[in-house]
């Protein structure tokens, strides 16, 4: 079985007025089907950049990367992934259902198919009943759920999420983490998830990639031995705390290298 994402010796250097910035350096990473992979690291470690490279939103300067066996560009054109941004990025002039319809309209799906997918995915993120509301009438957490439904409506096997819950408070974040976990368990999608929260990364992931900055590189890859099926209570167990500890140590070591 070939990997969903296969990255070899990938580097990305931004040319700025202050000279080159090595955003990513010599990244090697394989992500298998059904994996939930988190990228965690301090700001400037390149975790978002790496996700954007996978999504063909940034071009690597060196190395190879394949997504579903294609180049990122081909994968994007084939709409092989759904992308969830840091902000919900809903269009203010569209109702929630019409926001979810946006990618479906662009794909040229029939009206009936659009309606069916909107209904199914709004149920999936527990937003049924809010179809006719405008984004500003929803809370931040509900808006982010709508944006997840929008990404899911494309029906990709691969979901790329860039700190989707970063701007939300802890209580809402816990709730959405739980929902996202159930969603992943139900649909068996491959998820690549960027975060800077250790509990979030450990709770959600099957594999945690710890990155460190300047140049952005992989410091540690932790395969989680927690059961696939889990609830938020797992955060109190010794196994969970052990993984969290290793992530924290990795972040500390990666950071002290710079200071």
């Amino acid at each position, binding site marked *: 079985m070939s990997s969903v994402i296969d990255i070899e010796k990938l580097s990305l250097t931004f040319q700025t007025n202050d000279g080159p910035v090595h955003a990513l350096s010599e990244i090697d990473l394989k992500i298998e089907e059904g994996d939930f992979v988190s990228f965690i690291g301090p700001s400037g470690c390149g975790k978002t950049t790496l996700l954007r490279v996978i999504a063909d939103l940034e071009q690597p300067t060196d190395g190879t990367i394949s997504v579903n066996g294609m180049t990122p560009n081909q994968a994007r054109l084939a709409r092989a*992934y759904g992308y969830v941004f840091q902000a919900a990025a809903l269009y203010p002039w569209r109702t929630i259902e019409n926001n979810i319809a946006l990618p479906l309209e*662009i794909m040229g799906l029939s009206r009936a198919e659009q309606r069916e997918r909107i209904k199914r995915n709004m149920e999936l993120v527990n937003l049924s009943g809010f179809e006719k509301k405008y984004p500003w009438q929803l809370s931040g957490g509900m808006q982010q759920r709508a944006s997840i439904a929008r990404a899911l409506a494309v029906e990709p096997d691969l979901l790329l999420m860039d700190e989707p819950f970063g701007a939300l408070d802890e209580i809402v974040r816990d709730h959405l983490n739980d929902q996202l976990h159930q969603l992943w368990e139900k649909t068996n999608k491959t998820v690549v998830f960027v975060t800077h929260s250790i509990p979030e990364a450990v709770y959600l992931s099957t594999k945690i990639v710890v990155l460190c900055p300047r140049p952005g590189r992989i410091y540690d890859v932790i395969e989680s031995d927690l059961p696939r099926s889990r609830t938020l209570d797992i955060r109190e167990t010794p196994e969970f705390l052990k993984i969290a500890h290793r992530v924290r140590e990795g972040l500390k070591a990666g950071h002290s290298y710079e200071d």
Partner: protein
Amino acid sequence: MTASTLPASRSTNPFAGLMRGTTGPVIVVVLALLAIWYVAAVVLNTPFQRDTYARANQSDVPFSQLVGDTLAQERPVLPAPHQVIAEMWDTTVKKAVTSKRSLVYHTWITLSTTLLGFLIGTLLGVLIAIGIVHSRVLDKSLMPWVISSQTIPILAIAPMIIVVLNAVGISGLLPKAMISTYLSFFPVTVGMVKGLRSPEIIHLDLMHTYSASKLQAFLKLRLPYAVPYLFTSMKIGIAASLVGAIVGELPTGAVAGLGARLLAGSYYGQTVQIWSALIMAALLAGSLVGLIGIAEKITLKRMGMAQ
């Protein structure tokens, strides 16, 4: 103590409620302006009135008569508000709309020029903006011309447009409308360029992840984003368009339109006529901007953007 006495003392003031909304303050401002206008009319018209008295060998004219006479001159330096209102009443309600002496007739001529010029100007402005936003070459080559076009005084270029278009056989409404277009496309271009560029990076990235075509990104993202900008620039555009229409009526010695009324009025020293045409132009501009404002409210509400 103050807490309990304050509301009571307020309610005994009969004018307390008047200034609470917007109506009261607006009325006060209008009355103040009218008062200043009347005082200015008396002061400015007094020299001519004194000359008249001197010629008629009248002396010892009481002040009250002087005031009354300065406000009732036939060709005052500054006509009094009631004279202008009387003239407007006379030339709108009391004249058939088809009459050359009807202000409604002249207003209609100017209005039709304004609307035609505004329509062409808005379309042109939107098209130029689309070009500028989508092509770096057009951005670099067109934008400087668009800006420099507005630095030329319209009074200098208006006669040339009319003469050139007349030479190629185009006369009537269109040459005048072209001057309106010349003035009104600019705010629309600038506003739409800003509007079409206003979507956030995240929204453009989103379109990119859907591998949307440029046309799809334009129709589904850029255009809706630019709608509020379009209405704002259209409000400026239509006012500029009216100015263009009036200016366009001046150099041809046009026989009809508010501009022609202004010109004829200044030839014959008919200040009352000039002022009534001016007030009419102001009312017209106000109503046009107001209409666009209403269209804006309705559109944004239907788009769900008015909260």
